[in-house]
């Protein structure tokens, strides 16, 4: 089993195992409910900005952090259990090479990402469509910057999920992998490391923005992809008597996210190949 056929088999098997798993649907359903609740109030109140194309600023924003976290949690759930059940070992006994098993499992990163980001984008978009006056809309309803923001969100998810994936394969226990992952994105990356770097390496503080989780924040904001949205945002902040933060060019953060993804998945691959199942 090689090449395209192997890819097809691995993809079909991973999707088959995921779609038959109740935990996957519960996690996705819970996120769909969360998204619906989040956008339900402005939808019911017919809020001013709850229509196309204004909705994109609400779709790609701070709340996108939740989709990254939910999807990464689900990824750990779907990958670490293969070790507890010893099905990873059985898949190899049944004829997959260890490399094939690894790459098959890594297909969960885009699969899970697509499912959760799909829910994250489609629910508010569908609601906003119902409130959109197509005759009155100025400019395209779905500008190019939406695709850029969606790509940024996808890459942000991949970089954070790659860390979760690495921990799943190294620790091989769902609870412990999740605990270490939360420990990293919370107390370590957002608490301990900044304190240590500011104290002992003050010249390097700007590099903190490029750590796996911190690097995702600029990628989640729609205003970083859309100049007009940034101008509106800056004007609103100024009107409130505050100084707006400068516009962030997401290019370096996109490159960094891609680099983190490649590095973390690469380390996971090397460690997985070297260890016994």
């Amino acid at each position: 089993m090689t090449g395209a056929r192997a890819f097809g088999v691995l993809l079909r098997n991973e999707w088959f195992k995921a779609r038959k798993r109740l935990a996957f649907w519960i996690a996705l359903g819970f996120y769909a409910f969360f998204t619906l609740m989040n956008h339900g109030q402005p939808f019911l109140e017919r809020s001013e900005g709850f229509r196309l194309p204004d909705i994109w600023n609400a779709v790609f924003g701070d709340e996108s952090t939740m989709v990254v976290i939910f999807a990464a949690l689900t990824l750990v759930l779907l990958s670490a259990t293969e070790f507890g059940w010893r099905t990873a070992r059985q898949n190899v006994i049944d004829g997959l090479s260890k490399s094939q098993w690894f790459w098959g499992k890594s297909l969960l990163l885009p699969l899970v990402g697509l499912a959760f980001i799909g829910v994250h984008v489609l629910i508010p978009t569908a609601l906003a469509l119902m409130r959109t006056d197509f005759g009155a809309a100025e400019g395209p309803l779905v500008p190019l910057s939406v695709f850029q923001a969606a790509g940024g969100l996808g890459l942000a998810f991949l970089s954070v999920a790659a860390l979760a994936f690495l921990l799943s394969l190294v620790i091989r226990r769902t609870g412990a992998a999740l605990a270490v992952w939360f420990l990293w994105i919370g107390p370590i990356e957002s608490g301990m490391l900044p304190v240590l770097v500011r104290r002992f390496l003050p010249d390097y503080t700007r590099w903190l923005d490029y750590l796996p989780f911190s690097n995702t924040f600029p990628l989640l904001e729609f205003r970083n992809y859309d100049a007009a949205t940034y101008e509106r945002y800056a004007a609103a902040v100024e009107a409130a008597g505050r100084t707006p933060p400068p516009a962030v060019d997401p290019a370096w953060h996109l490159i960094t996210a891609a680099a983190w993804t490649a590095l973390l998945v690469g380390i996971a691959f090397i460690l997985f190949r070297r260890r016994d199942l």
Partner: protein
Amino acid sequence: MTIIETEGLSKRYAALRGDGTLAVDQLSVQVEAGQVYGFLGPNGSGKTTTIGMLLGIINPTGGSFRLFGGETPAELHAARQRIGATLEYPNFYPYLSCRDNLRVVARVKGSDEADIAEVLEIVGLASRRKTKFKACSLGMKQRLALAATMIGDPELIILDEPANGLDPAGQREIRDIIRELARRGKTIFLSSHMLHEVERTCTHVAIIETGRLVREGSVDELTSARTVAAVGVDGDIEALRQAVSEFEGAGHARVEDGRVLVQIGGAGLSELNRFLAGRGIYASHLSLERQSLEDAFMEITGTPEGFGEIQ
């Protein structure tokens, strides 16, 4: 044709301190096509580690092996497509049904999903095909594992303790399936504690102890090379066993079917009879019998300690 060939195969598990554990030590065995090969050894002797190395889930730390003549990673990967195997306990997705678990296996093996109905029929799970694995009894799980090994009609079937934890009826079912596979001409590599069954089913055996090969050969060679004395008495059988144990050159004496069986080395029955009479024990039965595989195993590996699951 040689199906499995290991040369000095070794595995040392790393430890934080010291040299670690040498689980398999310079193991060299050879399995030919069509053989039903029993792989025996006490608990912790390295059987599962050896099978794990053959199946690609454990990385060897020394030596080499060939499967179907192939040795390179690509050749071994291709060879493993011709193997059906289970290792230790049945490992399946608990939330999937028996049939869906076999679907996953069939896809991995590149096999037709039509095989699934056939193998479920063979192992007697056709009517339980929709039962989730987590709801299966241990016997059903073992049978499902056997069914999985048969998907894709493999040439070599490797079974590691396929009847572990089963009641006598379950063991009998598993034994019948293995015999059927052997009858179909499959090469079978069987690691088992069921020495009586191994003796009845296998054509060849290898015995390993603390990771080293201590004996390899046909079952006939192993069992006919030694004879045991069977001694019966109308009185206290335990006193007889005790007395026989003290006979010069006697091996491990055990009671079976109301008789004491013992390896007596070069001595004859008349000497044993005289010895017992000298102790005031008069045998009601005295004969030489071919040694069972279990006797041979006990003699080769020493004591029965560490082999607590003989069935």
